[in-house]
């Protein structure tokens, strides 16, 4: 466990030294300028747009971190041969995978946490300056705790994407890993459509194939409750638990597969 912790902290340190936290500055600038501009242009809609923008930006910025750091977690170590000295230390290969994954999840957690705080600060500022007419037009309170549910699901989705990137990085090149992870991200958001594919095709084998793919590929739309939260709709706790459970199982399966592949690999 100590080894996993030390490896994770080193991954976190690498992302800090590689200036990953700069994205937080861009995020803050984006939110503050958007809130200022929207305050001039809209009446009552600004809070909804800021929520939407904040959640979308958290998701997109996190996606870039998960993919572009995730694909290098293992492959960069192998390519640069830093793995030689590392694996000669008393750590098992599964521990290395676990540590690398935990390190990037820690980076993402800090990122999402800071973005959450920034979003709430901007929303509080808008709320503070809002007129009673504007307040009346709001569908949901500005500092709606429901936002936290959406942010939690975004974080779980980012953990899943990190696991996908790490899985590919155990056996393919960074470019191929990035392409495959991004492709799975896109497919994952349309995966739910495959579930009912038999309604739009006559071919039974095609319907079976679509149903099979639905079960194998990640269903990332399960983690997207941005629209509901922004419009003040309640996200049931049961849904949150089932989505988190689905994410945890998928992540577990990916990490297990990554470990199996990595444990058998020769580093020539």
């Amino acid at each position: 466990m100590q080894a996993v912790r030390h490896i994770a902290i080193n991954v976190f340190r690498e992302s800090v030294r590689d200036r990953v936290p700069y994205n937080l500055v861009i995020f803050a600038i984006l939110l503050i300028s958007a809130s200022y501009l929207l305050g001039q242009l809209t009446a009552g809609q600004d809070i909804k747009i800021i929520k939407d923008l904040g959640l979308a930006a958290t998701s997109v910025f996190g996606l870039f971190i998960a993919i572009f750091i995730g694909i290098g977690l293992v492959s960069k170590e192998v390519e640069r041969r830093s793995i030689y000295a590392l694996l000669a230390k008393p750590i098992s290969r599964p521990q290395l995978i676990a540590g690398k994954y935990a390190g990037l999840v820690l980076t993402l957690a800090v990122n999402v946490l800071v973005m959450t705080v920034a979003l709430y600060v901007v929303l509080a500022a808008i709320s503070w300056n809002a007129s009673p007419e504007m307040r009346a037009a709001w569908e949901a309170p500005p500092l709606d705790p429901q936002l936290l549910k959406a942010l939690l699901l975004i974080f779980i989705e980012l953990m899943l994407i990190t696991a996908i990137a790490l899985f590919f990085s155990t056996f393919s090149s960074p470019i191929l890993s990035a392409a495959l992870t991004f492709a799975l991200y896109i497919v994952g958001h349309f995966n739910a459509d495959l579930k009912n594919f038999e309604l739009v095709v006559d071919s039974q084998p095609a319907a079976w194939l679509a149903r099979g793919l639905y079960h194998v590929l990640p269903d990332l739309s399960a983690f997207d409750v941005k629209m509901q939260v922004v419009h003040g709709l309640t996200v049931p706790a049961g849904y949150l638990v089932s989505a988190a459970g689905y994410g945890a199982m998928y992540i577990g399966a990916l990490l297990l597969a990554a470990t199996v592949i990595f444990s058998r690999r020769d580093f020539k």
Partner: protein
Amino acid sequence: MTPAIELQELTKDYAVGFWRPRPYRALDRLSLAIAPGEVFGFLGPNGAGKTTTLKLLMQLIFPTSGSAEILGKPVGDVATRRRIGYLPENPYFYDYLTAEELLTYFAQLLGVPSADRGRRVSHLLDRVGLGRERRFQLRKFSKGMIQRVGIAQALINDPEVVFLDEPMSGLDPLGRRDVRTLILELREQGRTVFFSSHILADAEALCSRVAVVAGGRLAASGRLTDLAEFRIRGWELVAANVSPSALERLRPIATRLTEISSGRYTVELPLSETPDALVTMLAGAGASIVSLNPLRDTLEDFFVQQIAAAAAGARADAGEGGHAGR
């Protein structure tokens, strides 16, 4: 006594070719036993199988057949790695870390107690001559400095067995001397050192025993001076101010006589000739002796012979049709 390192019939085949992979034998049934406290030189030309052997010992690659043990435990035993150190060939480390941070990180992974960690990191960085640069990021380091960091990290846990893959690589003459001194210190402390090299002088200066690999096979092993391939085959004498009369006396016995500059000669003598008498004669004739060295086949000569023998062996095996490709 349990050997510090033991290899039994260790073999590694790689698959080469994309569409129709064929086995390529990088290491062929290598067996060795290294006693605790030995400084063992693992010699061979490039592509002989030295790094493959070290990677098998570190379990960076898995053997096709055979086995290896370190300190009486199979190489896969994670706990044993607390007791060993390893310098990879042409090492690369995280360039965003400082030398101090890298050593601290590795010390943490090796379970070096926190009370000793700082002191040990400082001592080793001073020892490899990087005390002043300890807080520089590794991206600012030269190849030689990275090699020194690599040596320091291999010793951070005060290991019982140290594996050094081409430790002199990338070092200037001063650095090479430092590493030699370091290895000698390790020997005095009773550590086992297994180092690979293709430079005979390193092995001669440091090793109690050597093994020579060529073409993935063990070509020879034993004490360097006992190996028939490296026995003395004559003498090389360099003398200055050699008078014409002394030169005339040298001509019949020299196997080769070369004038380097005016009055300065290199004389090669057969093993049967006693150099002491010749030195006395030359000194008596007013010549000054610049150097006298034994002549032996160089490791390079030996490599060439072994590669030719290995190629002949492979042709014979291919003729019999029973051996993996090489």
